[in-house]
């Protein structure tokens, strides 16, 4: 199967690279690790399809990258979304977290374990 280059078809670097649905570039792996470390699945579900929090596979079709970053870093306290600007890991990897979730939302990255493209 061919690799998918995700995100906008702008001149800049692709948001993520994925092969066979579960092999991704090293930055997107970092995004996935950040997702796990922050236990995001407790609210958004192991497959990003939502639990008590919204389904991110849908939200990422609507939110801009900036809106996504603002939401994650500053939280939406009234809805129970924590602010993650206190986490070094999130702050450093926010672009990669976005890339991972965008890949899930685009349907290019499959749910579950990811590995790095060798």
């Amino acid at each position: 199967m061919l690799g998918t280059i995700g995100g906008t078809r702008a001149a800049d670097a692709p948001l993520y690279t994925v092969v066979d649905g579960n092999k991704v570039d090293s930055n997107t792996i970092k995004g996935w690790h950040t997702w796990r470390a922050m236990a995001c699945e407790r609210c958004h579900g192991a497959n990003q399809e939502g639990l008590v929090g919204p389904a991110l596979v849908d939200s990422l079709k609507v939110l801009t990258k900036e809106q996504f970053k603002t939401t994650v870093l500053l939280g939406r306290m009234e809805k129970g979304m924590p602010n993650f600007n206190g986490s070094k890991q999130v702050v450093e990897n926010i672009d990669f977290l976005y890339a991972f979730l965008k890949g899930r939302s685009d349907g290019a990255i499959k749910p579950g374990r990811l590995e790095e493209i060798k």
Partner: protein
Amino acid sequence: MSSRKSFRNWWQYAVLLAVPVFASASSDIEALTKDSNNWAMQAGNFANQRYSELKQINKSNAKNLQVAWTFSTGVLRGHEGGPLVVGDTMYVHSPFPNKVFAVNLEDQKIKWKYEPKQDSAVIPVMCCDTVNRGVAYADNKVFLQQADTTLVALDAKTGKEIWKVKVGDPKIGETTTNAPHIFKDKVITGISGGEFGVRGRLTAYDINTGKEVWKAYSTGPDAEMLMDPQKTMTWTDGKMAPVGKDSSLKTWSGDQWKLGGGTTWGWYSYDPALNLVYYGSGNPSTWNPSQRPGDNKWSMTIFARDLDTGEAKWVFQMTPHDEWDYDGVNEMILANIKVKGQQRKTLVHMDRNGFAYTMDRSSGELLVAEKYDPTVNWASGVDMKTGRPILDAKYSTDRQGPDVNIKGICPTALGTKDQQPASFSPKTGLFYVPTNHVCMDYEPFKVDYTAGQPYVGATLSMYPATAKGNMGNFIAWDAGTGKIVWSKPERFSVWSGALSTAGDVVFYGTLEGYIKAVDNNGKELWRFKTPSGIIGNVHTWSFKGKQYIGVLSGIGGWAGIGLAAGLEKSTDGLGAVGGYKDLANYTELGGVLTVFALPGKAGV
């Protein structure tokens, strides 16, 4: 050996708004629980039995039960615990924002309403929904343990604050979901936050002043755990022996005990004759076992402590070095039953790990430990000499280290039973237990600690235990022999507290929202669909000669949080038909108390 260092500072936190006229060594709570017209404690009595002597509603007429009145809390999210009834007043609580209503039973008018001001920043550090397991009552005061760790005493007549004290710090992930418990002149409370690297403890306060009397940590140095290396006993090689020096410190590497978990968010019981308080501690932090080598004492432990000093008389660790999140917080039910033909004063505890433990509650000796769901597989049994589970290496999440997905572990992290409390009927001698029938895949991974951020380190997927697809059972358990007497399958986990009565009727609720009445043999007598899924606990009381049954519905909690949960394809072949995802087809959010009675006038 007492911990007085915290005593120095209590006044900085306690806001004294009234001065008690006198301080007695005891409150009226014991007398109130002896009158079965009341439901004065969350569990009905000190022994955590959830049994009522009332028998107007019995196995012949339960089929005629009908709704007497209803009451909305105006709050969504999970409604655990239940209301209290003292005399002519009912005290109803809600999840965050933790409202309390005093309702006049005469006309269901609201006498007073209390709504604390809490910072909503506490919501994200609550792991498993914004639940609260109810208020406590004694000496004309109502005690509320808010989510933000504020413990407040209210005047039961007016709802006015008498005193307040902070028992923890939400900034480091400390929250509170447990009901406070009143024994004699003390209010006992715990702490939640095992998923945030909190250090668990139980704290006792004076009911009149809010002054801290003692604080006992689950992990760390002996003095801070109120443990005496020589006097505190534990089951060792088939007999009781002292725990010895540094019994906790020796089982952690370095400073890990400081983030060690062992939280205390369950139900506590008390034996006045022995003056002992019983409770369990939760999981060690993190969920990634390879990050914390050792037995991680005293997480996952049954504690028996002196009520007046907090000193630990005996301890028993059920799941050393947890690899599955099998918190030990479930209620300790005190019951005098026959064990292997001998009458014993026991403590019975249905643990998350799938084993039901019967202990001698005065000495701490292990008497029985058996599976209460046949699918439990992470351990083949409990070694009665050591008290340790006999592990099946296949289901160890530690053996292969992080980033390996271990499949087919039974039970899930939810346990064979979570906090949903069981009931004991002295009349039948049996325990009626709401259970989960769910298995999981568990993948640990390395996490770093940041105060106030999740410190979990595992990813899980859950699915029904067998191809039959039912995710719960309501069972009758014989704790003397360690055998299931009968088991009634339920579509979803049974996440509601049970009630047994002298009328030979046992009640429980389901996640679809049914309250059900069964007879002592598990035969269904009656059911009613309440407005939402039930994770609250059924209770009963009598007013003006008429017996009532009440239950809070309002889906949520860890079971209900998965309303929209998807399942991974990896569970194919286990007959998973959508698991908890199915729940969305049955129920929606919303907190309502529904009250039932028999038709006609009192005594009919």
